[in-house]
């Protein structure tokens, strides 16, 4: 049994909303509202949800790129929420992130060598010669070659840029990589190349991924377990096969049925949800999903359902199962 590498307990991130002449606090946006999960060593945990559900904020809070409001983040049995900046910087050698937009996450004025070499410098590899050697090695690992090192980001295609982003994340041999929508901006044929690369790298370097995406079929392909988020809360978390074959939460059911499949023979019962995701600054009382839920009951409006294990390894937050 693998041991947990990352444990999240009751993570919350509230953003203040300021208004009025004096910029006083007039409200809060509950971007992440009491989320808990664990990630085992060598595992890929997928997090899916629609835009604004807090999945990216969760990812960034884990690395403390955004300071969480409340909750505990345990990495390798060590609570990291209390660490000072210096200790945190050192720790980030072990926890890295890949961003969605390979156009915006690479500095256009730096060469690839500088971009990939920077984390090495930060983490103490001061010899320029060694860095150069390591950059070359990293570029080859992600399927680029040595001569790319002296080029600038604009000279690369989207897929190649994402490879550079991956090389940068790999630079210090991390244990955990948070992947924040790494393939969303890519074309289908390039997307599959990057997914395969990430899969290979995980095996080669024994990495653990938290894979954040909105594309359910991509998440299904790459993850071992999948968590579904809605309006800042985790609504369901289980093995991917269980989640896709037997979704329990009405939101997961609707989400899965909404994905168009390129199979003209497949006829499905489609649940089309009405309305939009409510605003997280003023979330509905009780269960956040009750305003759109086809199976909502009276209790859903009043009491927030607990996130509980209803079957072995199958966590759901819904009153239908309590």
């Amino acid at each position, binding site marked *: 049994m693998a041991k947990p590498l990352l444990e999240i307990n009751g993570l919350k991130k509230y953003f203040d909303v300021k208004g009025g002449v004096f910029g006083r606090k007039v409200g809060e946006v509950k971007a992440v509202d009491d989320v808990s999960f664990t990630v085992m060593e060598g595992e890929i945990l997928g997090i899916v949800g*629609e*835009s604004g559900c807090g999945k990216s904020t969760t990812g960034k809070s884990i690395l403390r790129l955004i300071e969480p409001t409340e909750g505990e983040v345990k990495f390798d049995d060590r609570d990291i929420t209390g660490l000072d900046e210096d200790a945190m910087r050192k720790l980030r050698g072990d926890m890295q992130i890949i961003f969605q937009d390979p156009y915006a996450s690479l500095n256009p004025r730096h060469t690839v060598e500088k971009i990939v070499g920077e984390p090495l410098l930060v983490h103490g590899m001061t010899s320029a010669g060694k860095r150069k050697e390591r950059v070359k090695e990293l570029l080859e690992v992600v399927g680029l070659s040595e001569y790319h090192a002296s080029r600038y980001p604009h000279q690369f*295609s989207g*897929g*190649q840029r994402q490879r550079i982003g991956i090389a940068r994340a790999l630079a210090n041999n991390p244990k955990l990589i948070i992947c924040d929508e790494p393939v969303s901006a890519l*074309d*289908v*044929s*390039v*997307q*599959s*190349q990057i*997914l*395969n690369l990430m*899969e290979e790298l995980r095996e080669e370097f024994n990495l653990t991924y938290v894979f954040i995406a*909105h594309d*359910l*079929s*991509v998440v*299904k*392909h*790459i993850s071992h377990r999948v968590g579904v988020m809605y309006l800042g809360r985790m609504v369901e978390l289980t093995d991917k096969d269980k989640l*896709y074959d037997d979704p329990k939460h009405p939101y997961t059911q*609707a*989400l*899965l*049925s*909404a*994905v*168009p*499949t*390129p*199979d*003209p*023979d497949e006829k499905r019962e*489609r649940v*089309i*949800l*009405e*309305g*939009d*995701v409510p605003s997280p600054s003023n979330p509905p009382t009780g269960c956040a999903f009750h305003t759109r839920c086809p199976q909502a009951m009276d209790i859903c409006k009043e009491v927030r359902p607990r996130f509980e294990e209803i079957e072995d390894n199958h966590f759901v937050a819904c009153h239908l199962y309590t």
Partner: protein
Amino acid sequence: MSDIVLELKDLHTHFFTDSGEVPAVDGVSLTVNKGEVVGIVGESGCGKSVTSLSVMQLVPNPPGRIVGGEINFKDENLVNASNKRMKQIRGNEIAMIFQEPMTSLDPLFKIGNQMVEGIRLHEKVSKQEARNRSIELLKLVGIPRADEVIDDYPHQLSGGMRQRVMIAMSMACNPELLIADEPTTALDVTIQAQILDLMRNLNKEKDTAIMLITHDLGVVAEICDRVVVMYAGQVIEEGTTREILKAPNHPYTKGLIRSLPNMKQKEQKLYSIPGTVPKPKMGRIGCRFAPRCEFAFDRCFQEDPALYQLENGRSSRCFLNDKTEGSLTGNGETIVGN
């Protein structure tokens, strides 16, 4: 049924840039029949958006220009149509919706003003009448509280609502053809399902032909009757949605379908087409896809393949369909077996 609404014949749209002439659309021919939903699929840079902009004469000029071919809308060739005539057509006979609903609505004007302006441009009606009609349209596309929303500004609406407003605007004058350029790409899946449902209903009820541009084969399977696959400015395959998705003929289409992560299968390794989409350039000889194609042989690099006509109105731009090159059966099996 087969009244042709739009016919493109050998359309060439080139861009004249500082670094030379770029053939973004390089000889595209296709037809859209009355009441039909035709999907145009391809990766970014394959010329699908430029094709649709060419129909509306919206390609920025300079640098872009239609250098050859015909765009026949009903019995009229739009390539040489005057600006005045195009203004009558745009929004009235052919309407268009874009990918990003935020940038296609003017943030400084209320929804109602923008809709009324469009209606009054094409029809002689009073402001009040146009406003009433706008409210009707907003209700038609499923906007709750339509009589209040009409006085909202675009930033007060969510992405899905904005796209609904765009669709309402485009339906204002009962166009015969609706060009939808990636209408759901910026939206979440549950909202995407709502919008696709809405477009399907409009197509059924009003018999509007739809030309849907997308990169998502799932969306195509959902709504399209026929599919045109584009690669590097050319049509490379055409057929009914069912046939294209079930039995693709061109190696590119095959690869594209195989590289999709599937929610049903439990394959560990995804298939991927090596390399990336080539940049369009002038004077290229040979099949555009040959450098990435696993079936490519010498002839693919030496001559341009024609669009071979197959049975059931299908066509495919690949030498493997040339009778003189031998049978295709061997290749048909590789996709099943792998």
